[in-house]
């Protein structure tokens, strides 16, 4: 029978445990709530505030050959001023619509156009212009009036309740020189070449986009290949690594191109040369290349699209002589949902850059690697690229992912990206070991092959600061067990599951063991401190039978026995009194 005091203690411990669980659940719940509010499932939750001077403003305007062929043509400086003022006018419209601040409109519009823009009811529509193609139609002899046609105004609007609208519109524009500043005097929309709507959820998410024919891709196994420094490419080192990749039996490399590392919207010639070099080295070794764009570009809001377009165009031009087999327009963009770019903006980004690539190179084969199989399975998103790609995270059921995606994309080719687990051990109960990596990779490859997926990208070629320990090779060049699985015909079914020793070698279990030892020592120490003097002293000291005090109220003992009496008393006072 349990003593009364023991029962109380157990109840107290249970209550404390419950309290901890409830507090933990509250913290997790609050975190989930904050995460949902900050990332948002709808575009309305994204924080849109259009800048009055757009980022990368100098990348927005391209001049088509002038239709105005009279004797006086705009001087280069005048052309620059007109373009800058026009871009600022667009930004002013977006800024006013999102903030209600009309000062920029006052500065950049004139006359009736200004009045009309200020009179338009505000609906919270965030508007970004991500490109203009201007054709000069008129330039006054006195240099104070200019008229041009914006033949291709690429406009992005985030509309509450309607998702993101992408449109290529045309405008007739008249600008005048007032007080030394060019201002928009007339702005007339002249239709569009179609408006694409992109929703933040559900399927089909995209409506109105131009479909792309399904691509034909060669089967093969690729791996991620990341040169350390694009600005100073180690050509010999790259060649050696690619030799190693070829020796492992890989047929392709998947090359993430860091957006910032390539110079953003203004890639320097050295970086473009480096990309060309990698393509050349791979081709020399019979490796096809998948270029993965915009790596590290975390802000996919329309404010960054102009720079993204510029980099993409520069890359397409740079590798025109030896284009990659596949352009992956973004690796898991749906994991980059942020406060400024909701799911709709992220999907719209993919649709937009797919169009940019199509404009730059109609023959280019493109894909987007989605993290969410449901998104990858959206036929409307699949239709804007030649092939569909989906990433299978470690531990996920590759067969289920393939089945989900295949159900939506029909006969469009499917690529699987298996980033694979790292071999850094980790702190989880299932340690990330080379054996685990090999087992998981074998399972995923087997599932892919059984599902008929011929194009797979696995892990990374080698461990590095950029790839972590996801490599098939260690940093010192030695091969991990998984390296033997990427060659054609590898015995995938023969890879054994990690054994018990592999399991118990994990940090988690070592930590658990250590915690148990510490807990046991603590309990032993606690019980020793709680024990009455007589019991701790033992029978040899003449103490009687001892046990925990049934009543811990100071100054009181059962049956009126005073503290320090025969049955002990307060465990701290008694020994002192005895001494």
């Amino acid at each position, binding site marked *: 029978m349990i003593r009364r005091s023991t029962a109380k203690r157990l109840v107290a411990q249970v209550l404390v445990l419950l309290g901890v669980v409830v507090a933990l659940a509250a913290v997790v719940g609050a975190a*989930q709530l904050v995460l949902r509010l900050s990332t948002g499932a709808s575009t309305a939750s994204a924080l849109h505030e259009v800048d009055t001077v757009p980022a990368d403003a100098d990348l927005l305007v391209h001049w088509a050959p002038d239709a105005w062929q009279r004797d006086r043509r705009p001087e280069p400086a005048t052309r620059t001023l007109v373009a800058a003022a026009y871009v600022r006018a667009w930004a002013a419209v977006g800024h006013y619509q999102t903030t209600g601040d009309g000062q920029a409109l006052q500065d950049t519009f004139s006359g009736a156009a200004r009045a*009309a823009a200020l009179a338009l009811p505000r609906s919270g529509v965030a508007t970004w212009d991500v490109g203009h193609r201007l054709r000069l139609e*008129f330039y006054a002899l006195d240099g104070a009036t200019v008229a041009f046609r914006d033949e291709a105004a690429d406009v992005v609007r985030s509309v509450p309740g309607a998702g993101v609208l992408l449109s290529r*519109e045309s405008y007739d524009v008249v600008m005048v020189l007032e007080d030394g500043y060019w201002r928009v005097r007339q702005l007339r929309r002249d239709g569009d070449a179609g408006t694409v709507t992109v929703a933040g959820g559900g399927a089909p998410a995209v409506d109105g986009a131009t479909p792309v024919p399904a691509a034909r891709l060669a089967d093969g196994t690729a791996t991620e290949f990341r040169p350390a420094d694009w600005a100073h490419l180690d050509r010999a080192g790259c060649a050696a690594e690619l030799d190693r990749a070829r020796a492992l039996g890989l047929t392709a490399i998947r090359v993430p191109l860091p957006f910032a590392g390539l110079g953003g919207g203004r890639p320097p010639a050295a970086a473009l040369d480096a990309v060309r070099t990698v393509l050349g080295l791979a081709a020399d070794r019979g490796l096809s290349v998948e270029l993965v764009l915009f790596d590290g570009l975390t802000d996919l809001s329309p404010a960054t699209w102009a720079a993204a377009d510029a980099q993409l165009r520069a890359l397409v031009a740079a590798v025109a002589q030896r284009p990659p087999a596949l352009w992956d327009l973004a690796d898991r963009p749906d994991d980059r949902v942020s406060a400024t770019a909701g799911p709709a903006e992220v999907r719209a980004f993919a649709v937009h850059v797919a169009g940019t690539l199509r404009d730059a190179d109609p023959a280019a084969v493109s894909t987007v690697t989605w993290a969410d199989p449901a998104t990858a399975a959206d036929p409307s998103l699949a239709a804007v690229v030649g092939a569909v790609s989906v990433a299978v995270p470690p531990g996920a059921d590759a067969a289920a992912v393939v089945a989900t995606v295949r159900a939506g994309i029909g006969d469009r080719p499917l690529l699987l990206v298996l980033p694979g687990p790292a071999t850094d051990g980790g702190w989880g109960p299932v340690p990330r070991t080379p054996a685990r990596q090999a087992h998981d990779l074998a399972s995923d490859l087997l599932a892919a092959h059984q599902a008929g997926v011929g194009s797979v990208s696995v892990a990374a070629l080698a461990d590095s600061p950029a790839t972590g320990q996801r490599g098939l090779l260690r940093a010192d060049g030695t091969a991990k067990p998984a390296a033997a699985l990427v060659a054609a015909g590898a015995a995938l079914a023969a890879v054994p599951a990690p054994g018990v020793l592999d399991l118990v070698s994990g940090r988690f279990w070592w930590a658990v063991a250590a915690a148990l030892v510490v807990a046991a020592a603590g309990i032993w120490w606690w019980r020793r401190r709680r024990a009455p003097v007589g019991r701790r002293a033992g029978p040899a000291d003449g103490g009687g039978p001892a046990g925990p005090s049934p009543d811990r109220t100071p100054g009181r003992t059962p049956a009126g026995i005073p503290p320090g009496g025969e049955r002990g008393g307060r465990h701290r006072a008694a020994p002192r009194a005895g001494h």
Partner: protein
Amino acid sequence: MTRRRTAVALVAALVLPAGCPLAAAAAAASPPGPGPSDARASDPRLDVAAAAVTAGDPATVVVTGAPAGSTVTLTVLTSVGAVVLTGTTSGTTSGTTSGTTSGTVAAGPAATFRLPAAVTRSAGTAGLVAVASGAVGRGELAVRPGTVAGPVQSVVGARSIVADGADTAMVVTIPTDRWGNAVADGTPVTVGRRGPDGAVTTATTAVTHLLAWQDLRAGTRAGQGAVWASVGGTSGPEVGLAEVAGVPLPFTVAPVEPAAASHAVADGRSLLAVQTSVLRDARGNVEPDGTLVTLEWGGPGGPSRAAGETVAGVARLWLQAPGSARTIEVTGYSRGVTAAAPLRLSFAAAVTAFPVRSSRSGADAVVDVGPVAVSGGALAADGTPVSVTVAAAGRRWTAPGRLLSGSVRVTVPGAAVTGPVEVSVAVLGATEREVLR
């Protein structure tokens, strides 16, 4: 049971991490209901109909194709921004919109949107995008500019052109409706012009790319003209256009008083007035007032220059007489044109002879000059410079002086050396010599 499953799904969605299989399972436990995907599957396309309107007039947009009771979000992409409207489908509509002819409406439940003047005041082709339960429809709303509303403002540049029959100015105008929209392309615009001779001419152009413009070629007669524009019966204010003479033909420069010029003396201070002929261009137009004329001539101290501006085509300038007798050649320039021939002016010596007396004072030589009389007998002006030079035994001493009441005493320190001393005095180009023994 269903409510309990929903609650479980909600709690799981909040508590469990995203991507967790349990969360997905919980979501799957949620009962199916009317959602976007269902609506898309059953009715993926909306019809958006709108008839063309004139800027500022209310417009009606009818959206059909969504089930009754659906919430329709209509985005209107105008020329100067986007507007979002929300409505609900109800009733059954068919036929056309609001008495217009081009907005055909499909039968079925419809959501009707009425766009106010604030939305339709900007002319252009407005894009319409309707979204209802995931279904999307698109359309266009043509907003035509209204008829022209005066005044028709014109801008002329340059404001001043050369009346050479070739120079050109340009008039630019943006005829607008009452909301400030440029009237429709192709609208004829009449440009009126009154030339310097008072003759009125008109030319017709048309609105293109939201504006109309017309070259204004110069005539051959200088003067002030005016330009205006009109559309139909609506006109605007005049804008001035000056036509000015071109570069002048070679001109002449002559003394204003030739008789006085023939007696000009080199007294270093008198002024001689000269003037140009009337400066005219090749077509006989007098140069505008203020045209710069420059005269240049040479002298022992280097080139000299005088500048003046024309009044009624003539520039009058004054030349200062040189300090010694000589003949100068005056050349005129204006707008890059050189005078036909240089003007030759001769300045006679102002002084012919004057008394000089020298003496010794210790080691110094003392020279008394004067009285010096100029032509006509008057004493030379006070301050007239005098230069005394003493030469003896191969050495030279020089001392300056200035006349006061026609005379001056100049002391040359240390110049009274033993033996004959030659004293030389120069005044206004005339020189007298004396030997001091």
